[in-house]
């Protein structure tokens, strides 16, 4: 519907030209790149979508990124596995509220699209107010992660610490409590970023809302969740790790 597809050489030339224009207008850039198209032998032209059908080249050994140290709590994964052994029998049924009864008011939209003004699936619980007090721990001492506090009997509640996730805002770690039937019953924040502006947003806004997301009625039985990432990403990553550790046959991914 747009311009005719470019030939591979034209794509390369266009790419080089656009890179050069971009670097030229970027004051941080010292030198521009050549605008000449590549003369290197190039890979066969890839039609859109075909790239994914070719096998990925195995990453060369030793190319794992060491540039930015992200904390990899997996060194403690043995303890995570221990936690898992306590909860795999419980059948985690964590999920979001989800009935679709409100979507009945569908109307025909232009161009064959379908529209509905009822966008929300059967909300069942009241959202936690963003100003509500959140179980936010004061970010004092970093907590090694993931560590596990397992119940003495499998029938009791299970407490799983999520991985301590480092992101650009700081470290985030949560602790999730699961009932004997696998229901997620509580989320506490063990560690949260403390940077000035971010802490306000994450502690007073994001955490209560995400707690609400985690604790809402759990009947929907979804396998995973699609959604874009939050800026306060570490929280849900940490929570996700706790959930993932605690999962049995049903996994729910926070996203």
């Amino acid at each position, binding site marked *: 519907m747009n311009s005719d597809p470019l030939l591979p050489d034209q*794509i390369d030339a266009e*790419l080089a030209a656009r*890179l050069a224009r*971009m*670097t030229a207008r*970027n004051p*941080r*850039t010292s*030198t521009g790149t*050549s605008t000449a198209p*590549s003369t290197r032998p190039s890979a066969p032209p*890839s039609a*859109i*979508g075909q*790239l994914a059908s070719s*096998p*990925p080249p*195995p*990453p060369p050994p030793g*190319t*794992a*990124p060491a540039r*930015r140290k*992200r904390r*990899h709590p*997996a060194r*403690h*994964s043995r303890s*995570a*596995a221990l936690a898992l052994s306590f909860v795999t029998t419980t059948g985690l049924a964590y999920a979001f*509220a*989800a*009935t*679709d*009864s409100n979507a009945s008011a569908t109307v025909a939209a232009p161009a*064959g699209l379908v*529209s509905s003004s009822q*966008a929300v*699936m059967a*909300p069942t619980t009241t959202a936690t107010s963003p100003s509500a007090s959140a179980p936010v721990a004061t970010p004092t001492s970093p907590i090694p992660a993931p560590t596990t506090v397992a119940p003495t009997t499998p029938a009791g509640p299970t407490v799983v610490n999520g991985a301590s*996730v480092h992101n*650009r805002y700081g470290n985030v770690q949560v602790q999730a409590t699961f009932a004997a039937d696998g229901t997620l019953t509580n989320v506490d924040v063990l560690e949260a970023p403390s940077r000035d502006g971010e802490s306000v947003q994450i502690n007073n806004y994001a955490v209560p*809302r995400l707690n609400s997301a985690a604790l809402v009625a759990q009947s*929907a*039985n979804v*396998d*995973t*969740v*699609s*959604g*874009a*990432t939050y*800026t306060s990403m570490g929280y849900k*990553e940490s929570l*996700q790790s706790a959930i993932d550790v605690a*999962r*049995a*046959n049903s*996994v729910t991914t926070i*996203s």
Partner: protein
Amino acid sequence: MIGSVGSIVVDSDQSGTHHVEFVMGMAVSIDIRDPGAANDTVAEVVSWLHHVDATFSTYIDDSVISRLGRGELDIADASDEVRDVLRLCEEIRIDTDGAFDIFEVPAPNGTTLDPSGLVKGWSIELAATMLERSGCTNFCINAGGDIALRGQPTVGEPWRIGIRHPEQIHELATVVTASGPLAVATSATYERGAHIIDPRTRQPTTELASVTVVGPDLTLADAYATAVFVMGLDGLEWILERPGYDAYAITHDAITTWTPGFERYRRDATT
């Protein structure tokens, strides 16, 4: 089912293998439902994802993309892999009339070269191909909400993917129900202050709060989700002309719109 978190695969058993890796600034969940050990396969995928991060990240100053963006590296000297990705981005820019454009939006590294809107989906699609080549047939990879599905979670049961509601984030907007292969990608603005820039105007988009694109290939689904988000509701009509791809969008005033083909995925979450 045995699970693990981090860079070490603990074990796997008859019910499958599950692994969460923190890479590319997010948690990537690899959920394999095929019985038997898949540790080597998962390790290979994890290695691949770290390689992608080191190469394409706009948060890493000496990644190939950062160096390209600063003009320190010529495109002709980049690897075939990098050039293939940038070519694909350019093809999609043309196909979207500039709604997807990796050269026009500020990147975290201070440049305006950011292929992240495609690289995540591309890398996960390839990761799924790696799992398939290793014999895995039933699995789900979720990278920060962009999902590649294959097969079924259990025999006879489709995957159920909750689509997060953008405004009421404790709720789901709908549930996508499907057996693989399928890709699901969502672009959305969830938090105050968050926005997606229209590369054509360099202004924040205003119409859509969330759009989910489903289709056969996560590389395209990821880029299409970004493009449709920028296009607004017009983007759903654009998607109609892309065979195999469907979209589900929610506007800021809570109007939900989807393409007719999306009906086959849309399910009452209670059934």
